[in-house]
């Protein structure tokens, strides 16, 4: 294999230009579109017949939709982790991963917003949140902070794309007329002058600084939606840090999965190397240990005291109805990835990918466990209520909408990679040049 430092600018450009979908790419897109359409049909049914098509009732009023929302919010943190923190820390090896991280963050935050609207019984009243919202309510804080994070993520995606537009515009024949027109609209003004670079670099630095507290806010506020409510399982001062550590883990897990897929699909082995998997593997194991630590705090301390309201909730998680799911989330979402990634052989691309998939799946079920069992254990006993109020398993409409939203997020990432370079071309060339000069 050719050494990455010996690559020429021409070769880098050729390798990293957006590529048309192959057969597998088209099948992948078709599957995602189908899932989205099924989700859209299920949502049409929900709009027509009301939330009664879901299995959410008086007690479980936050079901799979809100679990999905928390999952999307969590995975969106990855943008600030890879792009902002690594950039500010001058971590050069992360360059090929920044755009992957940012598009995951942006697509996740878009669907986090949409899934909240899906959860509303009367979505046409969404604007009332802004027109009549009470700033005392953590729900309004969440609405504000999600919109803010969306704009910052979009800017953080757009600014580093500007130098790439100049390169993309030079390959009209390869990219096609339609895309060329899009590139011209979005970045034909970029000439690569010294002043433009100066303003752009400064803006990216500002964004990197701003996005970190905003990202912390979005996860803390989302955790406060639960923690400001006096309920078993949510009544915790630990929740902000617990959510942020979990978000870092699932975000990093999402990135390693995407790294592996893009590397294989677009033959990017020269750019996303084994070194990247080695370093990201270490990152994931550190974050998994951190999240495990918070989990121990979150469950073991209340379990030690076993206060009466907490007892039923915790018993259900540890040894009751939710025990299989709970131990699956702990084992697959944390313990097994730690075991795989602790060893050097486990930090090769395929094991890291498998560990990443485990982390993401475990994280999704973990969010479900945070939301639903608590709602089924209110402080006052459930009396004289229909049996359907006492249990919750999502209806097919809920599953279809949730899967449709996940497919939608993946579709955005897929289409983005079709239109734009998934690894920054200009930045990669600059870094290779710097490496060559330093030799």
């Amino acid at each position, binding site marked *: 294999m050719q050494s990455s430092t010996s690559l020429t600018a021409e070769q880098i450009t050729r390798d990293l230009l957006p590529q048309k979908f192959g057969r597998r790419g088209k099948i992948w897109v078709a599957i995602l579109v189908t899932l989205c359409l099924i989700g859209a049909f299920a949502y049409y049914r929900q709009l027509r017949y009301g939330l009664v098509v879901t299995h959410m009732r008086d007690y479980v009023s936050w079901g799979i939709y809100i679990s999905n929302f928390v999952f999307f919010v969590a995975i969106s943190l990855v943008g600030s982790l890879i792009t902002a923190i690594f950039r500010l820390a001058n971590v050069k090896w992360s360059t090929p991963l920044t755009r992957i991280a940012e598009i995951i963050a942006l697509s996740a935050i878009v669907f986090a917003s949409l899934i909240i609207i899906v959860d509303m019984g009367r979505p046409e009243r969404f604007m009332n949140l802004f027109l009549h919202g009470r*700033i005392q309510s953590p729900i309004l804080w969440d609405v504000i902070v999600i919109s803010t994070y969306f704009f910052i993520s979009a800017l953080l995606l757009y600014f580093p794309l500007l130098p790439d537009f100049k390169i993309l515009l030079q390959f009209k024949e390869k990219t096609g007329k339609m895309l060329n027109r899009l590139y011209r609209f979005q970045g034909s003004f970029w000439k690569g002058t010294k*002043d433009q670079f100066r*303003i752009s670099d400064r803006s990216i630095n500002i964004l990197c600084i701003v996005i970190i507290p905003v990202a912390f806010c979005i996860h803390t506020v989302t955790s406060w939606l639960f923690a400001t409510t006096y309920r078993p399982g949510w009544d915790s001062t630990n929740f902000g840090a617990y959510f942020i550590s979990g978000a870092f883990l699932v975000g990093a897990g999402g990135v390693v999965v995407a790294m592996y897929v893009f590397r294989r699909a677009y033959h990017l082995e020269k750019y996303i190397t084994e070194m990247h998997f080695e370093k990201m593997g270490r990152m994931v194991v550190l974050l998994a240990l951190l999240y495990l630590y918070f989990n121990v705090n979150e469950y073991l301390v209340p379990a030690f005291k076993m206060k009466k309201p907490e007892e039923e909730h915790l018993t259900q998680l540890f040894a009751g109805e939710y025990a299989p799911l709970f131990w699956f989330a702990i084992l697959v979402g944390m313990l097994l990835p730690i075991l795989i990634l602790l060893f050097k052989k486990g930090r090769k691309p395929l094991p890291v990918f498998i560990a990443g998939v485990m982390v993401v799946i475990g994280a999704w079920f973990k969010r479900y466990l945070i939301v639903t069992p608590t709602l089924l254990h209110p402080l006052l006993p459930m009396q004289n209520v229909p049996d359907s109020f006492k249990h919750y398993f999502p209806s097919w409409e809920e599953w279809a909408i949730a899967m449709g939203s996940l497919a939608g997020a993946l579709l955005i990432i897929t289409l983005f990679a079709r239109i734009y370079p998934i690894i920054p071309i200009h930045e990669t060339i600059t870094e290779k040049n710097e490496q060559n000069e330093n030799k």
Partner: protein
Amino acid sequence: MKTSKFLVLIVSFLIAFHSAVNAQDEPAKPKQVVTLRYFNENNSFQYLLLQSWSKTGKKLEPVANKAFQVYLDSNSSANLVGKVQTDNEGKVKALIPAGLKSVWDSASTHTFLVMAEGSGKEDETATEFTITKSKITIDTTNQDGVRSIAASVMKFDQGNWVPVANVEMKLGVLRMDKSILSGGDEATYTTDSTGIATAEFKKDSLPGDSKGNIILAASVEDNDELGNLLIEKPVNWGVPLKEDKSFFDQRALWTTRFKTPYWLLIIAYSISIGVWSTILYLVFQLFRIKKLGT
């Protein structure tokens, strides 16, 4: 011989013991109990309250979803008060329909008959209750600052309303749960020969509505002849209740959006303005970059 006598004794004892054990094993057959009560509220609203029970030993269990037919004076279809079904607590109310006015007016004493449906004993009366038509009135007096409540009970007898003596009743203030707080020192009062019971009102600092109104009431409960009677009268004898709006009039987390605490407003708006002004600045930088390239 002695041995055979002894064997007979043992066998007899065993048979008796076996019978006794079997008798204990057989569950006691539950007995159906139906009660009927008559209510007359404010001399204008009359209804019956039927309760169905299943009695096993000393234990009473309400019987839900049991159907009954209630008649006035005779079990002919023309005298049907209504077909009713008990609720989960074994209770059901039956209103006396206007169509039975002529039957009601024809006599001073009436008997309500209750027949159980689907029991196979439709012709048998499950229970019956006889009442004499009566009315209750309430009045107040204020002599030298001493307030009193007077209630009179009359019954309809041979075309005339005549006072009823020796009727025990409660006199006082109607609570929200429909019970009566005695207005004087006694728990109950009894009518004299003129059919009147009087209580000196001593609860003079009770909270009323915003104008100080409270509701006085007199009630006769489960009288064998008259049933249950209740009469109410609003009077201005309470202490006016001033609504305390100060709780919602302060700046706090639980109030409306117009009463947000200042500290929260300052923090929330500072953060929002700080972040959004940065975003606007960066958008402005984009325009600068664009200007430099065109």
